[in-house]
C-alpha cells in the first residue's frame, strides 16, 4: 500500500518518514497508479483514508480513472478549508476476495476510514469487513441495492442504487425520444453478469413496466465481464431483429461490443447504456469516430454547480484532455464526505466519524441533486442521472432538459458511413 497526503494548508513538516518511504517504495511495484504528494498541515493529524480501487485486472482502466479523482482532491479540499487526509492506496485487483483482504490489511495498517471500490461485488466484500471492524466506509461507486439494506452502521453510499439509476434512466429515455422524435421499436438487453449487472437486470423487471416506453425487450443476454470475444453475443442480439441495444456494461466489453457491431455490419437505431464504459475517455479515444452516437444514462455532475467547475478545472490541469466523468466525480465526493465528517467530528474515533457522516448535509458538491445527505440506511437518496451522448469525441448532456447542453441525435449514424 502507498500512503499519500491530501488537503491541509502549508506544511510545518512533511510526515514522510524513512519507514513510510521504504513502505511506499516497496509497494510501488504492486500498486499501480500514484497521486502526487500533497501537503500535510500541522493542525492535527491527517485522517487516514484507505482508498480501495481495482487498479489492476479487468477493471484496471476504470480503477485508475477513479484514482484521478483522488489525485485532484487534495488542493480542492484544502480550498474548502477541510482537514487533511492521508491517502492509503489499495488495489482490489478487480476481485472481491482480494478487496476483502486489502480492506483488512488497510485497517490493520491504521486506516481510519475506507473509500471505494467502484464495483458492487468488491464493495459488498469491503462493507462486511468495515462493519465487522467498526470502521466507516464511504462507497464511491456501486449500485447493488443490498449493500445498504443490511442494517450496517458504518457503511455509507453516495451513489444511486440500481433501481434509482433505472428509474432515472427510463425517465430520461422518454425525454430523449420525445425530443428526437424517434425511438427503437425493440431492444436487446445485454448485461455483464457480475453483481452490478445482475442487480440492474433484476431491477429492470420491476421498473421497466412502469414507464410505458416505446420499445419492447426482445431478448436478454448476460455475458462475462472478462469475456475476450463477444461475437456470439452480438450475433445473437442481431438475430432477434431488434433495432436497439439496452446495455449494462463495463469498459473493455463496451469496446469489444462496438467492434463486433461494426464487423457484423449492424448499426442499431440507438445504443442505450445504463452503466460505465460507453462514455469513458478510453472508449472515445480508442474507437475514434466509431465511438460517436451511444447514449449513456448515468449518475453525473451538475455543470452549473461551483464545485463542478473547480473540479473540472483541476482535472484539466492535472490531466489535459481527460473529460470529467462519473469515476472522478464520485471518488472525489467520497473524499469530500470523509474530510467533512472529520472536520465536524473533530476526532478520528470511528463511531464519531460514522455519526458525522450520517448527519452530513453538504450543499457545495458536484453531483446532480440537492446535495449530499444520507438516510437511516446510509444511502444518499437524492442523486439524479443525466443522459449523455458521445459526439465527435466529446460528451454532451441531452437530458434532463434543465441540465442539457445539446439535443439528442437519433437514429445513430451508420458505422460504415462515418
Amino acid at each position, binding site marked *: 500500500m502507498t500512503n499519500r497526503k491530501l488537503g491541509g494548508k502549508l506544511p510545518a513538516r512533511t510526515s514522510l518518514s524513512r519507514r513510510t518511504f521504504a513502505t511506499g517504495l516497496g509497494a510501488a*511495484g504492486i500498486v*499501480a497508479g500514484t497521486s502526487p504528494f500533497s501537503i500535510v498541515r500541522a493542525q492535527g493529524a491527517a485522517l487516514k483514508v484507505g482508498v480501495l480501487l481495482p*487498479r*489492476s*485486472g*479487468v477493471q*484496471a*482502466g476504470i480503477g*485508475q480513472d477513479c484514482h484521478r479523482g483522488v489525485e485532484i482532491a487534495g488542493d480542492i479540499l484544502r480550498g474548502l478549508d477541510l482537514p487533511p487526509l492521508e491517502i492509503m492506496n489499495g488495489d482490489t485487483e478487480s476481485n472481491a476476495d482480494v478487496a476483502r483482504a486489502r480492506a483488512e490489511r488497510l485497517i490493520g495498517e491504521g486506516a481510519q476510514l475506507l473509500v471505494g471500490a467502484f464495483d458492487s461485488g468488491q464493495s459488498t466484500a469491503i462493507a462486511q469487513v468495515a462493519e465487522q471492524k467498526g470502521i466507516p466506509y464511504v462507497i464511491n461507486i456501486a449500485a447493488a441495492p443490498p449493500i445498504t439494506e443490511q442494517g450496517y452502521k458504518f457503511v455509507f453510499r453516495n451513489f444511486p442504487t440500481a433501481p434509482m439509476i433505472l428509474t432515472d434512466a427510463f425517465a430520461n429515455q422518454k425525454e430523449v425520444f420525445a425530443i428526437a422524435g424517434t425511438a427503437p421499436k425493440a431492444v436487446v438487453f445485454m448485461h455483464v*453478469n457480475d453483481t452490478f449487472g445482475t442487480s440492474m437486470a433484476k431491477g429492470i423487471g420491476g421498473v421497466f413496466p412502469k414507464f410505458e416506453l416505446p420499445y419492447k425487450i426482445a431478448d436478454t*443476454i*448476460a*455475458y*462475462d465481464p*472478462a*469475456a*475476450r*470475444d*463477444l*461475437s*456470439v*453475443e452480438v*450475433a*445473437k442480439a*442481431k*438475430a432477434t431483429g431488434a433495432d436497439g441495444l439496452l446495455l449494462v456494461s463495463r469498459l*473493455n466489453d463496451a*469496446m*469489444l461490443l462496438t*467492434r463486433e457491431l*461494426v*464487423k*457484423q*455490419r449492424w448499426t442499431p437505431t440507438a445504443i442505450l447504456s445504463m452503466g460505465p464504459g460507453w462514455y469513458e475517455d*478510453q472508449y472515445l479515444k*480508442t474507437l475514434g469516430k*466509431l465511438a460517436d452516437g451511444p447514449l449513456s444514462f448515468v449518475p453525473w455532475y451538475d455543470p452549473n454547480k461551483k464545485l463542478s467547475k473547480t473540479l473540472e478545472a483541476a482535472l484539466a490541469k492535472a490531466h489535459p484532455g481527460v473529460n470529467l466523468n462519473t469515476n472522478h466525480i464520485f471518488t472525489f465526493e467520497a473524499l469530500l464526505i470523509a474530510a467533512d465528517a472529520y472536520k465536524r467530528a473533530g476526532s478520528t474515533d470511528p463511531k464519531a466519524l460514522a455519526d458525522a457522516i450520517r448527519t452530513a448535509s453538504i450543499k457545495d458538491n458536484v453531483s446532480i441533486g440537492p446535495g449530499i445527505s444520507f438516510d437511516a440506511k446510509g444511502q444518499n437518496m437524492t442523486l439524479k442521472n443525466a443522459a449523455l451522448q458521445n459526439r465527435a469525441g466529446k460528451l454532451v448532456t441531452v437530458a434532463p432538459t434543465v441540465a442539457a447542453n445539446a439535443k439528442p441525435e437519433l437514429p445513430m449514424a451508420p*458505422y460504415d458511413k462515418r
Partner: protein
Amino acid sequence: MPTEIYLNVAVNGLLTGLVYGLMALGLSVIFGVVRVVNFAHGEMMTLAMYATVVAFASLGLDPFLMLVPAAAALFALGYLLQVGIINPFINRPEHSQFMLLVAVATILVNLQLILFGPDARSVQTSYSFDSFLVGSLIVDASKAYAGATAVLIAGALFAFFRFTVIGKAIRACADNYTGALVVGLDVKRLYALTFGLGAACVGAAGVMLSLVIDVTPALGPAYTLLAFVIVITGGLGSMPGALLGGVLIGLTEALAGLLYTPSAKSMFAFGILVLVLLFRPQGILGKRIG
C-alpha cells in the same frame, strides 16, 4: 432464429479455435518431447502480443510483419530458458518443474505489469473492422487471416518434424530417450530446440491473437489454462490433437453461447474436458501410456 446465424457463429468459432490450436500446439510439442509442462505458456504468448502492440504503436508495423521477428524472439527465449533453467530440472520431480515454471510465469506477468501497466492494449489496423460478406455469411477479416495463418504455421511445423533431419532427431528423442543418447544425439540441445520451437509457435499465435483480442498482463494465466484444456482434450503430446482440441473448444464456446447462454461458454468447454478425462483420459488423439 435465422439459420445463417448458426453458420456465422460456427465459422467464427472455427477460426478462433484454429488460433487457440496453434497456441496449444506449442505446449503439446514441448511436452511431447521434453516431458516438461510449460506453465508459463500463456505468459509467453502475451509477451509476443505486447511486442506486436508496441511495434504497431511505435513503428506502425503490421502484425503480419511481426510474425517472424516475434516467433524468432520467442524461439530464442524458449531456447535460453531450456538451456539455462529447465535442463537442470529435467530429472527432478515433477513438482519441482511445476514450481519452476510457475515462478517463470509469475515473473513474466509482473514484468509485463511494470513495463506496460494493467490497461488493455490493442492493435487497430486498417482491416481491424473489416468483414467479408459471402452470401449471408459474415466472416471477421482479422479472424480469417489469423485462422489461415495458424493453419499454415501448423502445416510448416508438421512438415518440419516429418521431413527434416533435425525434426526426425527430435522425434527420436521423444520416442526413445536412451536410444537417442546411444546413437549420439545431443539430446539437451535438441530439447532446447524443441522448447524454442514450442515458444515460437506460441509467439506466432500471440501475434495472430493480437488481431482479435486486447492484451493485458492478466491474460497470460487465463490462456495457460485454456492451452491446458485444449491439449488435454486433444491429447497431451499429440500435435494434430492440439489443433483438433483448439477447434473443438472454439466451436463449443461459440455454439454454447448461441444455443444456451453466452455466460456459460467456458462451462461447456470445461464440460468437454471432464468428459474426455472420464472416458478417454489420454485425450481424443492421444496415445495411452502404460
